Protein backbone atom coordinates (compact mmCIF):
# COMPACT_ATOMS: atom_id res chain seq x y z
CA UNK A 1 0.00 0.00 0.00
CA UNK A 2 1.36 3.39 -0.93
CA UNK A 3 -0.06 6.81 -1.64
CA UNK A 4 -0.44 6.43 -5.38
CA UNK A 5 -4.08 5.82 -6.29
CA UNK A 6 -3.06 3.93 -9.42
CA UNK A 7 -1.47 1.31 -7.25
CA UNK A 8 -4.57 0.73 -5.14
CA UNK A 9 -6.02 -1.87 -7.45
CA UNK A 10 -8.01 0.73 -9.32
CA UNK A 11 -10.15 -0.94 -11.96
CA UNK A 12 -8.81 1.34 -14.65
CA UNK A 13 -5.29 0.57 -15.88
CA UNK A 14 -4.19 3.99 -16.83
CA UNK A 15 -0.96 4.54 -18.64
CA UNK A 16 -2.14 7.75 -20.11
CA UNK A 17 -4.55 10.14 -18.52
CA UNK A 18 -5.32 12.59 -21.25
CA UNK A 19 -7.44 14.79 -19.00
CA UNK A 20 -4.80 15.09 -16.31
CA UNK A 21 -7.41 14.49 -13.64
CA UNK A 22 -5.58 11.58 -12.12
CA UNK A 23 -2.03 11.45 -10.76
CA UNK A 24 -0.51 8.46 -12.46
CA UNK A 25 2.10 6.86 -10.26
CA UNK A 26 5.48 5.89 -11.55
CA UNK A 27 5.08 2.35 -12.85
CA UNK A 28 8.35 1.36 -11.35
CA UNK A 29 6.46 1.75 -8.15
CA UNK A 30 8.88 1.76 -5.29
CA UNK A 31 12.07 2.74 -7.08
CA UNK A 32 13.12 6.19 -5.93
CA UNK A 33 13.51 8.85 -8.56
CA UNK A 34 17.23 9.22 -7.97
CA UNK A 35 17.82 5.52 -8.47
CA UNK A 36 15.81 5.51 -11.66
CA UNK A 37 18.10 8.18 -12.98
CA UNK A 38 21.31 6.46 -12.04
CA UNK A 39 20.46 2.98 -13.19
CA UNK A 40 18.56 4.11 -16.23
CA UNK A 41 15.55 2.16 -14.98
CA UNK A 42 13.17 4.39 -16.78
CA UNK A 43 14.64 3.50 -20.10
CA UNK A 44 14.89 -0.22 -19.55
CA UNK A 45 11.19 -0.19 -18.75
CA UNK A 46 10.22 2.11 -21.52
CA UNK A 47 9.59 5.03 -19.18
CA UNK A 48 11.61 8.19 -19.52
CA UNK A 49 13.23 10.13 -16.72
CA UNK A 50 11.04 13.14 -16.50
CA UNK A 51 10.43 16.63 -15.30
CA UNK A 52 6.95 17.47 -14.06
CA UNK A 53 4.79 15.86 -16.68
CA UNK A 54 1.53 16.04 -14.85
CA UNK A 55 0.15 17.93 -11.91
CA UNK A 56 -0.30 16.20 -8.56
CA UNK A 57 -2.43 18.22 -6.17
CA UNK A 58 -4.68 20.30 -8.35
CA UNK A 59 -7.11 23.14 -8.19
CA UNK A 60 -9.90 23.37 -10.73
CA UNK A 61 -11.34 26.38 -12.59
CA UNK A 62 -10.64 30.04 -11.87
CA UNK A 63 -13.08 32.63 -13.20
CA UNK A 64 -12.61 36.30 -13.90
CA UNK A 65 -14.97 39.01 -15.14
CA UNK A 66 -14.66 42.73 -15.71
CA UNK A 67 -17.53 44.91 -14.49
CA UNK A 68 -18.21 48.64 -14.22
CA UNK A 69 -15.40 49.95 -12.03
CA UNK A 70 -13.53 46.76 -11.36
CA UNK A 71 -12.73 43.12 -11.81
CA UNK A 72 -14.22 40.14 -10.01
CA UNK A 73 -12.63 36.70 -9.69
CA UNK A 74 -13.77 33.38 -8.27
CA UNK A 75 -12.20 30.06 -7.32
CA UNK A 76 -13.29 27.27 -5.03
CA UNK A 77 -11.36 26.11 -1.97
CA UNK A 78 -10.61 22.58 -3.06
CA UNK A 79 -7.25 21.06 -3.90
CA UNK A 80 -7.73 17.57 -5.32
CA UNK A 81 -5.33 14.66 -5.30
CA UNK A 82 -6.49 12.93 -8.40
CA UNK A 83 -10.12 12.12 -7.74
CA UNK A 84 -9.61 12.49 -4.00
CA UNK A 85 -10.93 15.74 -2.57
CA UNK A 86 -7.73 16.10 -0.55
CA UNK A 87 -7.53 19.68 0.83
CA UNK A 88 -10.81 21.47 1.44
CA UNK A 89 -9.68 24.88 2.68
CA UNK A 90 -7.14 25.99 0.13
CA UNK A 91 -7.17 29.63 -0.96
CA UNK A 92 -6.54 29.87 -4.66
CA UNK A 93 -7.00 33.63 -4.91
CA UNK A 94 -4.05 35.60 -3.61
CA UNK A 95 -3.60 39.34 -3.30
CA UNK A 96 -0.16 40.06 -4.74
CA UNK A 97 -0.28 43.87 -4.72
CA UNK A 98 -2.51 46.75 -3.63
CA UNK A 99 -4.62 46.40 -6.76
CA UNK A 100 -3.75 42.96 -8.06
CA UNK A 101 -5.07 39.45 -7.41
CA UNK A 102 -3.58 36.21 -8.69
CA UNK A 103 -5.82 33.18 -9.17
CA UNK A 104 -4.47 29.72 -9.88
CA UNK A 105 -5.74 26.50 -11.31
CA UNK A 106 -3.57 23.46 -11.89
CA UNK A 107 -0.77 22.20 -9.68
CA UNK A 108 -0.95 23.72 -6.20
CA UNK A 109 2.74 23.32 -5.37
CA UNK A 110 3.71 25.14 -8.56
CA UNK A 111 1.20 27.82 -7.60
CA UNK A 112 2.78 28.23 -4.18
CA UNK A 113 6.18 28.52 -5.82
CA UNK A 114 4.95 31.25 -8.20
CA UNK A 115 3.15 33.00 -5.36
CA UNK A 116 6.43 33.07 -3.49
CA UNK A 117 8.30 34.38 -6.56
CA UNK A 118 5.89 37.25 -7.02
CA UNK A 119 5.74 38.06 -3.32
CA UNK A 120 9.56 38.26 -3.32
CA UNK A 121 9.43 40.65 -6.26
CA UNK A 122 6.90 42.82 -4.47
CA UNK A 123 9.02 42.91 -1.31
CA UNK A 124 12.01 43.96 -3.40
CA UNK A 125 9.95 46.79 -4.87
CA UNK A 126 8.71 47.83 -1.44
CA UNK A 127 12.22 47.87 -0.02
CA UNK A 128 13.50 50.09 -2.83
CA UNK A 129 11.13 52.71 -1.39
CA UNK A 130 11.45 55.00 -4.39
CA UNK A 131 7.84 55.60 -5.36
CA UNK A 132 7.80 52.73 -7.84
CA UNK A 133 6.01 49.44 -7.54
CA UNK A 134 4.88 46.74 -9.92
CA UNK A 135 1.40 47.45 -11.26
CA UNK A 136 -0.90 44.73 -12.61
CA UNK A 137 0.42 44.85 -16.21
CA UNK A 138 4.01 44.64 -14.91
CA UNK A 139 3.23 41.63 -12.75
CA UNK A 140 1.44 40.06 -15.69
CA UNK A 141 4.50 40.53 -17.90
CA UNK A 142 6.75 39.04 -15.23
CA UNK A 143 4.45 36.08 -14.74
CA UNK A 144 4.39 35.54 -18.48
CA UNK A 145 8.19 35.53 -18.68
CA UNK A 146 8.41 33.03 -15.82
CA UNK A 147 5.86 30.69 -17.42
CA UNK A 148 7.38 31.00 -20.90
CA UNK A 149 10.92 30.41 -19.69
CA UNK A 150 9.90 27.30 -17.79
CA UNK A 151 8.06 25.87 -20.78
CA UNK A 152 11.13 26.64 -22.91
CA UNK A 153 13.22 24.59 -20.50
CA UNK A 154 10.69 21.79 -21.04
CA UNK A 155 9.92 21.95 -17.33
CA UNK A 156 6.64 23.83 -17.15
CA UNK A 157 4.83 25.17 -14.15
CA UNK A 158 1.62 23.21 -14.46
CA UNK A 159 -0.88 26.00 -14.02
CA UNK A 160 -3.22 28.34 -15.73
CA UNK A 161 -3.07 31.64 -13.90
CA UNK A 162 -5.57 34.45 -13.98
CA UNK A 163 -4.41 37.92 -13.02
CA UNK A 164 -6.93 40.63 -12.25
CA UNK A 165 -6.36 44.20 -11.26
CA UNK A 166 -6.86 47.90 -11.72
CA UNK A 167 -4.13 50.29 -12.85
CA UNK A 168 -4.42 53.98 -13.68
CA UNK A 169 -8.19 53.70 -13.96
CA UNK A 170 -7.92 50.75 -16.35
CA UNK A 171 -9.23 47.32 -15.48
CA UNK A 172 -6.94 44.41 -16.21
CA UNK A 173 -7.88 40.76 -16.62
CA UNK A 174 -5.43 38.32 -18.17
CA UNK A 175 -4.57 34.63 -18.20
CA UNK A 176 -1.36 32.67 -18.77
CA UNK A 177 -1.15 28.92 -19.20
CA UNK A 178 1.64 26.38 -18.75
CA UNK A 179 2.88 26.97 -22.31
CA UNK A 180 3.22 30.67 -21.67
CA UNK A 181 0.21 31.66 -23.75
CA UNK A 182 -0.98 35.07 -22.57
CA UNK A 183 -4.36 36.59 -23.37
CA UNK A 184 -6.54 39.33 -21.97
CA UNK A 185 -10.31 39.46 -22.19
CA UNK A 186 -13.41 40.83 -20.48
CA UNK A 187 -14.17 37.35 -19.16
CA UNK A 188 -11.81 34.48 -18.46
CA UNK A 189 -12.41 30.94 -17.24
CA UNK A 190 -9.75 28.25 -16.89
CA UNK A 191 -9.98 24.48 -16.98
CA UNK A 192 -13.49 23.06 -16.98
CA UNK A 193 -14.69 26.61 -16.55
CA UNK A 194 -13.65 27.37 -20.12
CA UNK A 195 -16.32 24.91 -21.25
CA UNK A 196 -18.98 25.42 -18.59
CA UNK A 197 -18.62 28.98 -17.28
CA UNK A 198 -17.12 30.96 -20.16
CA UNK A 199 -20.27 30.59 -22.32
CA UNK A 200 -22.36 31.94 -19.44
CA UNK A 201 -19.95 34.82 -18.84
CA UNK A 202 -19.85 35.75 -22.52
CA UNK A 203 -23.61 35.52 -22.77
CA UNK A 204 -24.06 37.84 -19.78
CA UNK A 205 -21.54 40.30 -21.22
CA UNK A 206 -23.46 40.35 -24.46
CA UNK A 207 -26.97 40.65 -23.01
CA UNK A 208 -26.01 43.24 -20.40
CA UNK A 209 -24.13 45.34 -22.95
CA UNK A 210 -20.48 44.73 -22.15
CA UNK A 211 -18.15 45.08 -19.18
CA UNK A 212 -19.00 48.76 -18.67
CA UNK A 213 -22.68 47.98 -18.10
CA UNK A 214 -22.36 45.24 -15.49
CA UNK A 215 -22.85 46.46 -11.93
CA UNK A 216 -20.95 44.99 -9.02
CA UNK A 217 -24.09 43.26 -7.72
CA UNK A 218 -24.73 41.74 -11.13
CA UNK A 219 -21.12 40.60 -11.37
CA UNK A 220 -21.37 38.84 -8.00
CA UNK A 221 -24.59 37.17 -9.08
CA UNK A 222 -23.09 36.01 -12.38
CA UNK A 223 -20.06 34.61 -10.60
CA UNK A 224 -22.16 32.67 -8.14
CA UNK A 225 -24.24 31.26 -10.95
CA UNK A 226 -21.09 30.10 -12.74
CA UNK A 227 -19.71 28.54 -9.58
CA UNK A 228 -23.00 26.72 -9.12
CA UNK A 229 -22.96 25.32 -12.66
CA UNK A 230 -19.36 24.24 -12.14
CA UNK A 231 -20.22 22.55 -8.86
CA UNK A 232 -23.03 20.64 -10.55
CA UNK A 233 -20.94 19.35 -13.43
CA UNK A 234 -17.23 19.53 -12.58
CA UNK A 235 -16.41 16.50 -10.45
CA UNK A 236 -13.26 18.18 -9.14
CA UNK A 237 -15.08 21.20 -7.78
CA UNK A 238 -16.56 22.04 -4.40
CA UNK A 239 -19.46 24.15 -3.13
CA UNK A 240 -17.18 26.36 -1.10
CA UNK A 241 -15.53 29.21 -2.92
CA UNK A 242 -14.23 32.74 -2.59
CA UNK A 243 -14.79 35.87 -4.60
CA UNK A 244 -12.13 38.53 -5.09
CA UNK A 245 -13.09 42.05 -6.06
CA UNK A 246 -10.57 44.60 -7.31
CA UNK A 247 -11.65 48.23 -7.73
CA UNK A 248 -10.03 51.65 -7.41
CA UNK A 249 -10.61 51.30 -3.66
CA UNK A 250 -8.44 48.21 -3.46
CA UNK A 251 -8.85 44.48 -3.09
CA UNK A 252 -11.38 42.51 -1.08
CA UNK A 253 -11.27 38.74 -0.97
CA UNK A 254 -14.42 37.32 0.55
CA UNK A 255 -14.73 34.62 3.18
CA UNK A 256 -15.57 31.20 1.73
CA UNK A 257 -19.21 30.96 0.68
CA UNK A 258 -21.52 28.49 -1.00
CA UNK A 259 -24.58 28.48 -3.25
CA UNK A 260 -27.85 26.68 -2.77
CA UNK A 261 -28.15 23.50 -4.80
CA UNK A 262 -30.91 21.01 -5.50
CA UNK A 263 -30.13 17.33 -5.81
CA UNK A 264 -33.67 15.88 -5.66
CA UNK A 265 -35.08 13.48 -8.24
CA UNK A 266 -35.31 15.27 -11.56
CA UNK A 267 -38.73 13.88 -12.33
CA UNK A 268 -40.21 17.13 -13.53
CA UNK A 269 -37.20 18.38 -15.38
CA UNK A 270 -37.55 18.07 -19.10
CA UNK A 271 -35.08 15.61 -20.55
CA UNK A 272 -34.51 13.73 -17.28
CA UNK A 273 -37.72 12.35 -15.84
CA UNK A 274 -40.78 11.08 -17.48
Amino acid at each position, binding site marked *: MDHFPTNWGNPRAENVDSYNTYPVASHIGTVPHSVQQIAGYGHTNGHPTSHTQSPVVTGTSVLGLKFKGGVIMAADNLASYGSLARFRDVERLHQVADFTVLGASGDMSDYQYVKNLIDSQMIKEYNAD*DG*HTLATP*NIYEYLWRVMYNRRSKMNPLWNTFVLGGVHKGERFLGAIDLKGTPYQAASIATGFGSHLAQPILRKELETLGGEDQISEEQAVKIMKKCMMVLFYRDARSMNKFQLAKITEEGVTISEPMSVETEWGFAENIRGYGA
Partner: protein
Amino acid sequence: MFRNQYDNDISTWSPQGRLHQIEYALEAVKQGSASVGLRSNTHVVLLALKRSSGELASHQQKLFRIDNHMGIAIAGLVSDARVLSNFMRTECMKSKMMYDRPMPGSRLVSLIGDKAQVNTQNYGRRPYGVGLLVASYDDETGPHLYECLPNANCLEYYAVSIGAKSQSAKTYLEKFAKDYGETDVDALIMHGLHALRETLQQDKELNLKNCSIGVVGKGQDWDVIEGDRLKAYLEQLETGAATTETGAAATTAGDLPQGEAMDTE
Protein backbone atom coordinates in the same frame (compact mmCIF):
# COMPACT_ATOMS: atom_id res chain seq x y z
CA MET B 1 52.49 66.83 -8.40
CA PHE B 2 50.17 64.61 -6.47
CA ARG B 3 52.66 61.76 -5.97
CA ASN B 4 53.00 60.30 -2.55
CA GLN B 5 53.65 56.87 -1.07
CA TYR B 6 49.98 55.99 -0.44
CA ASP B 7 48.66 56.18 -3.96
CA ASN B 8 50.09 53.04 -5.55
CA ASP B 9 46.84 51.16 -5.48
CA ILE B 10 43.21 51.71 -4.86
CA SER B 11 42.98 49.77 -1.62
CA THR B 12 45.60 51.52 0.49
CA TRP B 13 44.56 54.24 2.89
CA SER B 14 46.67 57.28 3.47
CA PRO B 15 47.26 58.16 7.14
CA GLN B 16 44.96 61.11 6.59
CA GLY B 17 42.14 58.68 5.79
CA ARG B 18 42.10 59.32 2.07
CA LEU B 19 42.16 57.07 -0.96
CA HIS B 20 44.35 58.91 -3.40
CA GLN B 21 43.61 56.79 -6.45
CA ILE B 22 39.94 57.64 -6.15
CA GLU B 23 40.72 61.32 -5.92
CA TYR B 24 42.84 61.02 -9.06
CA ALA B 25 39.88 59.44 -10.81
CA LEU B 26 37.82 62.47 -9.83
CA GLU B 27 40.51 64.61 -11.42
CA ALA B 28 39.99 62.69 -14.67
CA VAL B 29 36.41 63.91 -14.68
CA LYS B 30 37.64 67.49 -14.33
CA GLN B 31 39.89 66.98 -17.37
CA GLY B 32 36.82 66.42 -19.54
CA SER B 33 34.87 69.26 -21.03
CA ALA B 34 31.90 70.42 -19.01
CA SER B 35 28.41 69.00 -18.91
CA VAL B 36 25.49 70.82 -17.31
CA GLY B 37 22.12 69.53 -16.20
CA LEU B 38 19.05 71.21 -14.78
CA ARG B 39 15.50 70.21 -13.99
CA SER B 40 12.07 71.81 -13.99
CA ASN B 41 8.92 70.26 -12.55
CA THR B 42 8.27 68.54 -15.85
CA HIS B 43 11.53 68.26 -17.76
CA VAL B 44 15.24 67.65 -17.47
CA VAL B 45 17.78 69.27 -19.76
CA LEU B 46 21.39 68.21 -20.23
CA LEU B 47 23.90 70.37 -22.05
CA ALA B 48 27.45 69.57 -23.00
CA LEU B 49 30.46 71.19 -24.52
CA LYS B 50 31.97 69.00 -27.22
CA ARG B 51 35.69 69.01 -27.77
CA SER B 52 37.55 68.30 -30.94
CA SER B 53 41.25 67.72 -31.31
CA GLY B 54 41.56 70.08 -34.24
CA GLU B 55 39.98 71.80 -37.20
CA LEU B 56 39.95 68.59 -39.24
CA ALA B 57 38.71 66.34 -36.44
CA SER B 58 35.18 65.47 -35.45
CA HIS B 59 33.75 66.47 -32.10
CA GLN B 60 33.57 64.02 -29.23
CA GLN B 61 30.11 62.68 -28.43
CA LYS B 62 28.97 63.88 -24.99
CA LEU B 63 25.32 62.88 -24.83
CA PHE B 64 24.10 59.30 -24.99
CA ARG B 65 20.58 57.99 -25.38
CA ILE B 66 19.84 55.23 -22.87
CA ASP B 67 16.16 54.70 -23.53
CA ASN B 68 13.16 56.76 -24.59
CA HIS B 69 12.85 58.11 -21.07
CA MET B 70 16.51 58.48 -20.23
CA GLY B 71 19.73 60.04 -21.42
CA ILE B 72 23.16 60.87 -20.02
CA ALA B 73 25.81 63.54 -20.38
CA ILE B 74 29.39 62.70 -19.56
CA ALA B 75 32.68 64.27 -18.58
CA GLY B 76 35.94 62.33 -18.51
CA LEU B 77 37.01 59.16 -20.28
CA VAL B 78 34.61 58.58 -23.16
CA SER B 79 35.56 54.93 -23.44
CA ASP B 80 34.52 54.33 -19.84
CA ALA B 81 31.31 56.22 -20.52
CA ARG B 82 30.56 53.92 -23.41
CA VAL B 83 30.93 50.89 -21.17
CA LEU B 84 28.61 52.42 -18.61
CA SER B 85 26.03 53.54 -21.15
CA ASN B 86 26.06 50.04 -22.60
CA PHE B 87 25.37 48.71 -19.12
CA MET B 88 22.57 51.20 -18.63
CA ARG B 89 20.99 50.35 -21.98
CA THR B 90 21.11 46.66 -21.13
CA GLU B 91 19.45 47.22 -17.78
CA CYS B 92 16.72 49.30 -19.40
CA MET B 93 16.01 46.53 -21.88
CA LYS B 94 15.96 43.93 -19.12
CA SER B 95 13.34 45.98 -17.33
CA LYS B 96 11.27 46.20 -20.50
CA MET B 97 11.64 42.50 -21.19
CA MET B 98 10.90 41.31 -17.64
CA TYR B 99 8.28 43.78 -16.44
CA ASP B 100 7.22 45.79 -19.48
CA ARG B 101 8.25 48.84 -17.50
CA PRO B 102 10.75 51.61 -18.26
CA MET B 103 13.68 51.32 -15.86
CA PRO B 104 13.17 53.78 -12.98
CA GLY B 105 16.06 56.27 -13.04
CA SER B 106 16.74 55.99 -9.33
CA ARG B 107 17.17 52.22 -9.55
CA LEU B 108 19.55 52.42 -12.47
CA VAL B 109 21.61 55.08 -10.73
CA SER B 110 22.03 52.89 -7.66
CA LEU B 111 23.08 50.00 -9.89
CA ILE B 112 25.79 52.23 -11.36
CA GLY B 113 26.76 53.18 -7.82
CA ASP B 114 27.14 49.51 -6.93
CA LYS B 115 29.25 48.89 -10.01
CA ALA B 116 31.48 51.89 -9.38
CA GLN B 117 31.94 51.06 -5.71
CA VAL B 118 33.48 47.68 -6.49
CA ASN B 119 36.21 49.53 -8.37
CA THR B 120 37.02 51.58 -5.30
CA GLN B 121 37.55 48.71 -2.88
CA ASN B 122 39.18 45.84 -4.74
CA TYR B 123 42.92 45.60 -5.22
CA GLY B 124 44.03 45.80 -8.81
CA ARG B 125 40.96 47.56 -10.08
CA ARG B 126 40.60 51.01 -11.52
CA PRO B 127 37.77 53.38 -10.76
CA TYR B 128 35.83 54.67 -13.73
CA GLY B 129 37.39 57.82 -15.11
CA VAL B 130 34.08 59.39 -16.00
CA GLY B 131 31.35 61.40 -14.38
CA LEU B 132 27.76 61.03 -15.54
CA LEU B 133 24.76 63.27 -15.46
CA VAL B 134 21.66 61.10 -15.75
CA ALA B 135 18.36 62.61 -16.88
CA SER B 136 15.26 60.49 -16.56
CA TYR B 137 11.51 60.87 -16.56
CA ASP B 138 8.72 58.57 -15.47
CA ASP B 139 5.00 59.06 -14.91
CA GLU B 140 5.08 57.94 -11.29
CA THR B 141 7.77 60.24 -9.89
CA GLY B 142 8.35 62.83 -12.61
CA PRO B 143 11.68 64.18 -13.87
CA HIS B 144 14.98 63.42 -12.17
CA LEU B 145 18.56 64.55 -12.53
CA TYR B 146 21.41 62.55 -11.02
CA GLU B 147 25.16 62.87 -10.88
CA CYS B 148 27.34 59.73 -10.74
CA LEU B 149 31.04 60.04 -10.00
CA PRO B 150 33.98 57.60 -9.98
CA ASN B 151 33.97 57.58 -6.17
CA ALA B 152 30.58 55.81 -6.46
CA ASN B 153 28.69 58.77 -5.09
CA CYS B 154 25.33 59.11 -6.81
CA LEU B 155 23.27 62.13 -5.86
CA GLU B 156 20.12 63.78 -7.13
CA TYR B 157 20.15 67.47 -8.05
CA TYR B 158 17.93 70.31 -9.16
CA ALA B 159 20.85 71.51 -11.24
CA VAL B 160 24.46 70.42 -11.46
CA SER B 161 27.53 70.46 -13.64
CA ILE B 162 30.64 68.34 -14.04
CA GLY B 163 33.89 68.64 -15.98
CA ALA B 164 36.40 71.37 -16.67
CA LYS B 165 35.51 74.72 -15.10
CA SER B 166 32.23 73.25 -13.93
CA GLN B 167 32.45 75.38 -10.78
CA SER B 168 31.69 78.46 -12.87
CA ALA B 169 28.60 76.80 -14.25
CA LYS B 170 27.54 75.77 -10.75
CA THR B 171 27.85 79.36 -9.59
CA TYR B 172 25.50 80.43 -12.35
CA LEU B 173 23.08 77.56 -11.69
CA GLU B 174 22.92 78.35 -7.98
CA LYS B 175 22.18 81.96 -8.71
CA PHE B 176 18.97 81.18 -10.61
CA ALA B 177 18.08 77.96 -8.83
CA LYS B 178 14.70 79.21 -7.61
CA ASP B 179 13.53 79.83 -11.21
CA TYR B 180 13.90 76.33 -12.64
CA GLY B 181 10.80 74.66 -11.16
CA GLU B 182 8.09 76.42 -13.16
CA THR B 183 10.27 77.17 -16.18
CA ASP B 184 9.33 75.86 -19.65
CA VAL B 185 11.79 73.77 -21.61
CA ASP B 186 13.14 76.56 -23.81
CA ALA B 187 13.88 78.81 -20.86
CA LEU B 188 15.48 75.88 -19.07
CA ILE B 189 17.72 75.34 -22.08
CA MET B 190 18.66 79.03 -22.08
CA HIS B 191 19.65 78.85 -18.42
CA GLY B 192 21.68 75.76 -19.28
CA LEU B 193 23.44 77.50 -22.14
CA HIS B 194 24.31 80.45 -19.91
CA ALA B 195 25.77 78.06 -17.37
CA LEU B 196 27.64 76.12 -20.04
CA ARG B 197 29.08 79.30 -21.47
CA GLU B 198 30.69 80.02 -18.12
CA THR B 199 32.86 76.93 -18.59
CA LEU B 200 34.35 78.10 -21.89
CA GLN B 201 37.97 79.07 -22.25
CA GLN B 202 38.69 82.77 -22.63
CA ASP B 203 38.71 82.98 -26.45
CA LYS B 204 36.03 80.36 -27.18
CA GLU B 205 32.37 80.66 -28.11
CA LEU B 206 29.45 78.29 -28.09
CA ASN B 207 28.60 77.35 -31.70
CA LEU B 208 26.61 74.84 -33.71
CA LYS B 209 29.45 72.34 -33.61
CA ASN B 210 30.72 72.33 -30.06
CA CYS B 211 27.42 72.22 -28.24
CA SER B 212 24.70 69.64 -27.76
CA ILE B 213 21.50 69.64 -25.75
CA GLY B 214 19.46 66.70 -24.53
CA VAL B 215 15.87 66.98 -23.36
CA VAL B 216 13.56 64.50 -21.67
CA GLY B 217 10.33 65.07 -19.77
CA LYS B 218 6.60 64.79 -19.61
CA GLY B 219 5.33 63.68 -23.03
CA GLN B 220 8.81 64.18 -24.40
CA ASP B 221 11.07 61.25 -25.29
CA TRP B 222 14.81 61.78 -25.02
CA ASP B 223 15.83 64.11 -27.80
CA VAL B 224 19.26 65.43 -28.66
CA ILE B 225 19.40 68.91 -30.17
CA GLU B 226 22.53 69.42 -32.24
CA GLY B 227 23.75 71.24 -35.33
CA ASP B 228 21.28 73.50 -37.11
CA ARG B 229 18.56 72.92 -34.53
CA LEU B 230 20.75 74.84 -32.06
CA LYS B 231 20.62 78.00 -34.12
CA ALA B 232 17.62 79.62 -32.45
CA TYR B 233 18.96 78.97 -28.98
CA LEU B 234 22.44 80.28 -29.73
CA GLU B 235 21.04 83.38 -31.37
CA GLN B 236 18.91 84.04 -28.33
CA LEU B 237 21.96 83.48 -26.17
CA GLU B 238 23.84 86.17 -28.05
CA THR B 239 21.07 88.76 -27.98
CA GLY B 240 20.04 88.10 -24.41
CA ALA B 241 23.61 87.94 -23.30
CA ALA B 242 23.80 91.41 -21.85
CA THR B 243 20.89 90.98 -19.49
CA THR B 244 22.12 87.85 -17.82
CA GLU B 245 25.82 88.65 -17.90
CA THR B 246 25.51 90.60 -14.71
CA GLY B 247 23.91 87.69 -12.91
CA ALA B 248 26.61 85.22 -13.67
CA ALA B 249 29.55 86.51 -11.77
CA ALA B 250 32.77 85.27 -13.24
CA THR B 251 34.43 82.93 -10.83
CA THR B 252 37.57 80.97 -11.37
CA ALA B 253 37.21 77.26 -11.60
CA GLY B 254 37.95 76.31 -8.04
CA ASP B 255 39.19 72.85 -7.25
CA LEU B 256 37.00 70.80 -4.99
CA PRO B 257 37.84 71.43 -1.37
CA GLN B 258 39.93 68.73 0.19
CA GLY B 259 38.06 65.82 1.67
CA GLU B 260 35.14 65.97 -0.72
CA ALA B 261 36.39 63.02 -2.71
CA MET B 262 34.68 60.49 -0.52
CA ASP B 263 31.42 61.34 1.04
CA THR B 264 31.95 60.31 4.62
CA GLU B 265 28.39 60.79 5.84
